[in-house]
Protein backbone atom coordinates (compact mmCIF):
# COMPACT_ATOMS: atom_id res chain seq x y z
CA UNK A 1 0.00 0.00 0.00
CA UNK A 2 1.52 3.30 -1.05
CA UNK A 3 0.90 6.29 1.13
CA UNK A 4 -1.37 8.90 -0.47
CA UNK A 5 0.81 11.71 0.89
CA UNK A 6 3.69 11.58 -1.56
CA UNK A 7 5.35 14.94 -1.45
CA UNK A 8 7.35 16.90 1.10
CA UNK A 9 7.79 20.28 -0.54
CA UNK A 10 11.50 21.28 -0.71
CA UNK A 11 10.51 24.97 -0.52
CA UNK A 12 10.00 24.48 3.21
CA UNK A 13 13.56 23.24 3.73
CA UNK A 14 15.31 26.56 4.45
CA UNK A 15 12.62 27.77 6.89
CA UNK A 16 12.75 24.34 8.60
CA UNK A 17 16.55 24.55 8.88
CA UNK A 18 16.44 28.10 10.29
CA UNK A 19 13.74 27.17 12.84
CA UNK A 20 15.71 24.06 13.84
CA UNK A 21 18.89 26.13 14.20
CA UNK A 22 17.04 28.54 16.49
CA UNK A 23 15.44 25.77 18.52
CA UNK A 24 18.84 24.09 19.05
CA UNK A 25 20.13 27.40 20.40
CA UNK A 26 17.34 28.21 22.87
CA UNK A 27 19.81 27.73 25.71
CA UNK A 28 21.18 31.18 24.86
CA UNK A 29 18.43 32.59 27.08
CA UNK A 30 20.43 31.38 30.06
CA UNK A 31 22.70 34.35 29.47
CA UNK A 32 20.35 37.31 29.38
CA UNK A 33 21.56 40.92 29.80
CA UNK A 34 20.47 40.86 33.45
CA UNK A 35 22.74 37.94 34.28
CA UNK A 36 23.11 34.17 34.30
CA UNK A 37 19.93 32.09 34.49
CA UNK A 38 20.99 28.66 35.66
CA UNK A 39 17.38 27.75 36.39
CA UNK A 40 16.74 27.33 32.68
CA UNK A 41 17.49 23.62 32.40
CA UNK A 42 19.67 21.78 29.94
CA UNK A 43 18.03 18.43 29.28
CA UNK A 44 19.54 15.26 27.94
CA UNK A 45 16.81 14.86 25.34
CA UNK A 46 18.65 13.72 22.24
CA UNK A 47 18.39 15.86 19.16
CA UNK A 48 18.93 14.63 15.61
CA UNK A 49 21.56 17.16 14.55
CA UNK A 50 25.26 17.63 15.03
CA UNK A 51 25.78 20.50 17.45
CA UNK A 52 29.56 20.70 17.82
CA UNK A 53 30.88 22.57 20.84
CA UNK A 54 27.53 24.31 21.32
CA UNK A 55 26.50 22.61 24.56
CA UNK A 56 26.23 25.90 26.42
CA UNK A 57 23.85 27.36 23.87
CA UNK A 58 21.92 24.15 23.40
CA UNK A 59 19.22 22.64 25.53
CA UNK A 60 19.28 19.17 23.98
CA UNK A 61 22.01 16.55 23.76
CA UNK A 62 23.92 15.82 20.54
CA UNK A 63 23.87 12.01 20.02
CA UNK A 64 27.62 11.86 19.37
CA UNK A 65 28.55 13.71 22.55
CA UNK A 66 26.10 11.59 24.55
CA UNK A 67 27.49 8.32 23.12
CA UNK A 68 31.03 9.27 24.09
CA UNK A 69 29.88 10.29 27.54
CA UNK A 70 28.15 6.94 28.12
CA UNK A 71 31.25 5.06 26.98
CA UNK A 72 33.46 7.06 29.36
CA UNK A 73 31.00 6.39 32.19
CA UNK A 74 31.08 2.64 31.36
CA UNK A 75 27.36 2.58 30.65
CA UNK A 76 25.93 0.80 27.65
CA UNK A 77 24.26 3.54 25.56
CA UNK A 78 20.82 1.91 25.31
CA UNK A 79 19.10 5.28 25.36
CA UNK A 80 21.25 6.84 22.60
CA UNK A 81 21.11 3.70 20.44
CA UNK A 82 17.36 3.47 20.86
CA UNK A 83 16.79 7.10 19.95
CA UNK A 84 19.18 6.86 16.98
CA UNK A 85 17.30 3.78 15.80
CA UNK A 86 13.96 5.54 16.12
CA UNK A 87 15.19 8.67 14.34
CA UNK A 88 16.82 6.56 11.62
CA UNK A 89 13.79 4.38 11.01
CA UNK A 90 11.33 7.29 10.97
CA UNK A 91 13.05 10.23 9.24
CA UNK A 92 16.59 8.87 8.62
CA UNK A 93 18.97 11.23 6.88
CA UNK A 94 16.10 13.61 6.19
CA UNK A 95 17.29 15.04 9.52
CA UNK A 96 20.67 15.89 7.90
CA UNK A 97 19.03 17.79 5.08
CA UNK A 98 16.27 19.54 6.99
CA UNK A 99 17.05 19.76 10.71
CA UNK A 100 20.80 19.59 11.38
CA UNK A 101 22.22 22.99 12.51
CA UNK A 102 25.58 22.08 11.00
CA UNK A 103 23.76 21.34 7.73
CA UNK A 104 22.47 24.91 7.55
CA UNK A 105 26.01 26.27 8.04
CA UNK A 106 27.33 23.93 5.34
CA UNK A 107 24.57 24.87 2.90
CA UNK A 108 25.55 28.52 3.35
CA UNK A 109 29.22 27.64 2.85
CA UNK A 110 28.27 25.77 -0.32
CA UNK A 111 27.20 29.02 -2.00
CA UNK A 112 30.87 30.02 -2.35
CA UNK A 113 32.30 26.62 -3.30
CA UNK A 114 33.95 25.84 -6.63
CA UNK A 115 33.01 22.13 -7.00
CA UNK A 116 36.10 21.49 -9.12
CA UNK A 117 37.26 18.20 -7.71
CA UNK A 118 35.35 14.96 -7.17
CA UNK A 119 37.00 12.92 -4.40
CA UNK A 120 37.26 9.14 -4.81
CA UNK A 121 34.27 7.01 -3.88
CA UNK A 122 36.07 5.19 -1.03
CA UNK A 123 36.22 8.44 0.95
CA UNK A 124 32.53 7.99 1.78
CA UNK A 125 33.60 5.22 4.18
CA UNK A 126 35.66 7.65 6.29
CA UNK A 127 32.53 8.65 8.18
CA UNK A 128 31.99 5.06 9.32
CA UNK A 129 35.61 4.97 10.53
CA UNK A 130 34.91 8.24 12.38
CA UNK A 131 31.82 6.66 13.97
CA UNK A 132 33.72 3.62 15.26
CA UNK A 133 36.77 5.77 16.02
CA UNK A 134 34.91 8.19 18.26
CA UNK A 135 33.72 5.34 20.46
CA UNK A 136 37.18 3.74 20.57
CA UNK A 137 38.96 7.03 21.25
CA UNK A 138 36.48 7.96 23.98
CA UNK A 139 37.13 4.61 25.66
CA UNK A 140 40.93 4.86 25.29
CA UNK A 141 41.42 8.49 26.28
CA UNK A 142 38.56 8.95 28.75
CA UNK A 143 37.69 12.29 27.12
CA UNK A 144 35.08 13.39 24.62
CA UNK A 145 37.81 13.17 22.02
CA UNK A 146 35.75 13.76 18.90
CA UNK A 147 34.04 16.90 20.26
CA UNK A 148 37.32 18.30 21.52
CA UNK A 149 39.66 17.68 18.64
CA UNK A 150 38.04 16.41 15.45
CA UNK A 151 34.88 18.38 14.79
CA UNK A 152 34.71 22.05 13.87
CA UNK A 153 33.05 23.77 16.78
CA UNK A 154 34.34 27.22 15.85
CA UNK A 155 31.19 28.23 13.99
CA UNK A 156 28.47 26.72 16.16
CA UNK A 157 30.10 27.09 19.55
CA UNK A 158 33.29 28.99 20.16
CA UNK A 159 32.76 32.10 17.99
CA UNK A 160 29.23 32.71 19.35
CA UNK A 161 30.63 32.41 22.91
CA UNK A 162 33.46 34.72 22.06
CA UNK A 163 31.10 37.31 20.56
CA UNK A 164 28.63 37.21 23.44
CA UNK A 165 30.47 36.25 26.61
CA UNK A 166 34.18 36.82 25.80
CA UNK A 167 35.08 33.90 28.03
CA UNK A 168 36.60 31.42 25.61
CA UNK A 169 40.09 30.05 25.65
CA UNK A 170 41.99 31.44 22.66
CA UNK A 171 44.02 28.23 22.32
CA UNK A 172 40.77 26.34 21.64
CA UNK A 173 39.43 29.12 19.46
CA UNK A 174 42.47 29.07 17.17
CA UNK A 175 42.69 25.28 17.19
CA UNK A 176 39.07 24.93 16.06
CA UNK A 177 39.42 27.75 13.57
CA UNK A 178 42.32 25.75 12.11
CA UNK A 179 40.23 22.58 11.88
CA UNK A 180 37.38 24.56 10.34
CA UNK A 181 39.78 26.09 7.79
CA UNK A 182 40.87 22.59 6.80
CA UNK A 183 37.28 21.44 6.21
CA UNK A 184 36.46 24.73 4.51
CA UNK A 185 39.38 24.40 2.07
CA UNK A 186 38.36 20.81 1.33
CA UNK A 187 34.75 21.90 0.81
CA UNK A 188 35.81 24.80 -1.40
CA UNK A 189 37.22 22.42 -3.99
CA UNK A 190 34.66 19.65 -3.59
CA UNK A 191 31.26 20.59 -2.16
CA UNK A 192 29.79 22.44 0.82
CA UNK A 193 28.25 19.19 2.05
CA UNK A 194 31.62 17.39 1.91
CA UNK A 195 31.50 17.05 5.70
CA UNK A 196 28.17 15.18 5.48
CA UNK A 197 29.40 13.03 2.60
CA UNK A 198 32.77 11.99 3.95
CA UNK A 199 33.24 12.77 7.64
CA UNK A 200 30.06 13.15 9.71
CA UNK A 201 29.76 10.30 12.26
CA UNK A 202 26.14 11.18 13.00
CA UNK A 203 25.46 10.98 9.27
CA UNK A 204 27.05 7.52 9.30
CA UNK A 205 24.86 6.37 12.20
CA UNK A 206 21.75 7.78 10.57
CA UNK A 207 22.62 6.31 7.19
CA UNK A 208 22.83 2.78 8.66
CA UNK A 209 19.44 2.97 10.40
CA UNK A 210 18.10 5.43 7.83
CA UNK A 211 18.48 2.74 5.18
CA UNK A 212 15.03 1.64 6.38
CA UNK A 213 13.71 5.20 6.72
CA UNK A 214 10.03 6.04 6.32
CA UNK A 215 10.95 8.99 4.09
CA UNK A 216 12.60 8.43 0.74
CA UNK A 217 13.10 9.86 -2.72
CA UNK A 218 10.68 8.45 -5.28
CA UNK A 219 11.69 8.29 -8.92
CA UNK A 220 9.13 7.97 -11.68
CA UNK A 221 10.96 6.74 -14.78
CA UNK A 222 7.90 7.09 -17.04
CA UNK A 223 8.27 10.84 -17.57
CA UNK A 224 12.04 10.98 -17.23
CA UNK A 225 13.98 12.32 -20.21
CA UNK A 226 17.39 11.49 -18.62
CA UNK A 227 18.46 15.12 -18.79
CA UNK A 228 20.52 14.52 -15.60
CA UNK A 229 19.64 17.93 -14.16
CA UNK A 230 18.96 16.16 -10.83
CA UNK A 231 22.42 14.58 -10.81
CA UNK A 232 24.12 17.95 -11.23
CA UNK A 233 22.45 19.54 -8.20
CA UNK A 234 22.68 16.65 -5.75
CA UNK A 235 24.78 17.85 -2.76
CA UNK A 236 25.71 14.26 -1.90
CA UNK A 237 27.00 13.47 -5.38
CA UNK A 238 24.35 10.83 -6.06
CA UNK A 239 22.39 9.83 -9.10
CA UNK A 240 18.74 10.37 -7.99
CA UNK A 241 17.56 8.23 -10.92
CA UNK A 242 18.94 5.24 -9.02
CA UNK A 243 16.95 6.05 -5.89
CA UNK A 244 16.35 2.40 -4.96
CA UNK A 245 20.02 1.39 -4.81
CA UNK A 246 21.90 0.74 -1.58
CA UNK A 247 24.16 3.73 -2.16
CA UNK A 248 21.25 6.16 -2.55
CA UNK A 249 19.36 4.74 0.41
CA UNK A 250 22.46 5.14 2.60
CA UNK A 251 23.58 8.54 1.40
CA UNK A 252 20.53 10.54 0.30
CA UNK A 253 19.70 13.38 2.72
CA UNK A 254 16.28 13.96 1.12
CA UNK A 255 16.96 17.67 0.65
CA UNK A 256 14.68 17.66 -2.39
CA UNK A 257 16.99 19.71 -4.62
CA UNK A 258 16.65 17.09 -7.35
CA UNK A 259 12.85 17.23 -7.08
CA UNK A 260 12.93 21.02 -7.32
CA UNK A 261 15.24 20.96 -10.35
CA UNK A 262 13.54 18.17 -12.32
CA UNK A 263 11.70 19.77 -15.29
CA UNK A 264 9.27 16.84 -15.60
CA UNK A 265 8.62 16.39 -11.87
CA UNK A 266 9.81 12.77 -11.94
CA UNK A 267 11.32 13.00 -8.47
CA UNK A 268 9.51 13.53 -5.19
CA UNK A 269 10.53 13.29 -1.57
CA UNK A 270 7.87 11.62 0.50
CA UNK A 271 6.84 8.78 2.79
CA UNK A 272 7.84 5.24 1.86
CA UNK A 273 5.23 2.46 1.93
CA UNK A 274 4.62 1.36 5.52
CA UNK A 275 3.19 -2.09 4.88
CA UNK A 276 4.13 -4.91 2.54
CA UNK A 277 2.05 -5.09 -0.63
CA UNK A 278 -1.08 -7.20 -0.15
CA UNK A 279 -1.48 -10.63 -1.74
CA UNK A 280 -3.80 -9.31 -4.47
CA UNK A 281 -1.27 -6.68 -5.44
CA UNK A 282 1.50 -9.30 -5.62
CA UNK A 283 -0.62 -11.60 -7.80
CA UNK A 284 -1.56 -8.69 -10.10
CA UNK A 285 2.12 -7.83 -10.48
CA UNK A 286 2.99 -11.44 -11.32
CA UNK A 287 0.20 -11.70 -13.88
CA UNK A 288 1.27 -8.43 -15.47
CA UNK A 289 4.88 -9.56 -15.60
CA UNK A 290 3.86 -12.82 -17.31
CA UNK A 291 1.69 -10.92 -19.76
CA UNK A 292 4.54 -8.64 -20.69
Amino acid at each position, binding site marked *: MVSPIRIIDPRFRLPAQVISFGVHRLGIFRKLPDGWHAEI*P*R*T*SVITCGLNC*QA*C*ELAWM*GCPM*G*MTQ*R*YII*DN*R*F*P*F*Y*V*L*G*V*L*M*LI*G*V*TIGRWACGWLCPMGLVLDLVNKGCKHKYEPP*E*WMRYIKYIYLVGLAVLAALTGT*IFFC*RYLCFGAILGIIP*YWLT*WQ*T*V*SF*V*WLFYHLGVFSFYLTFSYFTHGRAWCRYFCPLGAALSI*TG*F*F*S*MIRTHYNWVWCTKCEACKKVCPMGLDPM*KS*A*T*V*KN*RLECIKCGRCAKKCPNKCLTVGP*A*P*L*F*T*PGKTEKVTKRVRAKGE
Partner: protein
Amino acid sequence: MEFKKWISTQAARFRSLQVSDDVIIRVRWFLLFMGILAVYLGFQAGDDWYVKEFATYDWARGMGY
Protein backbone atom coordinates in the same frame (compact mmCIF):
# COMPACT_ATOMS: atom_id res chain seq x y z
CA MET B 1 46.57 -5.28 -6.75
CA GLU B 2 44.18 -8.13 -7.56
CA PHE B 3 42.70 -7.94 -4.07
CA LYS B 4 42.26 -4.17 -4.34
CA LYS B 5 40.45 -4.63 -7.64
CA TRP B 6 38.26 -7.36 -6.17
CA ILE B 7 37.36 -5.18 -3.18
CA SER B 8 36.43 -2.20 -5.36
CA THR B 9 34.35 -4.44 -7.65
CA GLN B 10 32.49 -5.91 -4.69
CA ALA B 11 31.94 -2.44 -3.19
CA ALA B 12 30.56 -1.13 -6.48
CA ARG B 13 28.30 -4.18 -6.77
CA PHE B 14 27.03 -3.65 -3.21
CA ARG B 15 26.39 0.04 -3.78
CA SER B 16 24.32 -0.58 -6.87
CA LEU B 17 22.33 -3.43 -5.31
CA GLN B 18 18.56 -2.93 -5.18
CA VAL B 19 16.83 -4.13 -2.04
CA SER B 20 13.17 -5.06 -2.34
CA ASP B 21 10.57 -2.95 -0.55
CA ASP B 22 9.26 -6.05 1.22
CA VAL B 23 12.54 -6.62 3.05
CA ILE B 24 12.91 -2.92 3.87
CA ILE B 25 9.39 -2.72 5.33
CA ARG B 26 9.84 -5.81 7.50
CA VAL B 27 13.26 -4.74 8.85
CA ARG B 28 11.89 -1.22 9.44
CA TRP B 29 9.14 -2.48 11.75
CA PHE B 30 11.65 -4.73 13.52
CA LEU B 31 14.04 -1.81 14.09
CA LEU B 32 11.20 0.41 15.26
CA PHE B 33 10.29 -2.06 17.98
CA MET B 34 13.97 -2.61 18.85
CA GLY B 35 14.41 1.16 19.18
CA ILE B 36 11.46 1.45 21.56
CA LEU B 37 12.81 -1.54 23.52
CA ALA B 38 16.31 0.00 23.73
CA VAL B 39 14.94 3.31 25.07
CA TYR B 40 12.81 1.39 27.58
CA LEU B 41 15.84 -0.68 28.66
CA GLY B 42 17.88 2.51 28.97
CA PHE B 43 15.45 3.86 31.51
CA GLN B 44 15.05 0.52 33.25
CA ALA B 45 18.80 -0.15 33.49
CA GLY B 46 19.66 3.25 34.91
CA ASP B 47 18.78 6.88 34.93
CA ASP B 48 19.83 7.25 31.33
CA TRP B 49 18.09 10.57 30.95
CA TYR B 50 20.66 12.28 33.08
CA VAL B 51 24.27 12.88 32.04
CA LYS B 52 25.88 14.67 34.96
CA GLU B 53 28.65 16.32 33.02
CA PHE B 54 26.24 17.95 30.57
CA ALA B 55 23.73 18.96 33.19
CA THR B 56 26.33 20.68 35.35
CA TYR B 57 28.33 22.36 32.54
CA ASP B 58 31.57 20.66 33.61
CA TRP B 59 32.20 19.87 29.97
CA ALA B 60 32.15 23.52 28.97
CA ARG B 61 34.31 24.53 31.95
CA GLY B 62 36.87 21.92 30.93
CA MET B 63 37.08 23.63 27.55
CA GLY B 64 37.83 26.96 29.20
CA TYR B 65 34.49 28.72 28.65
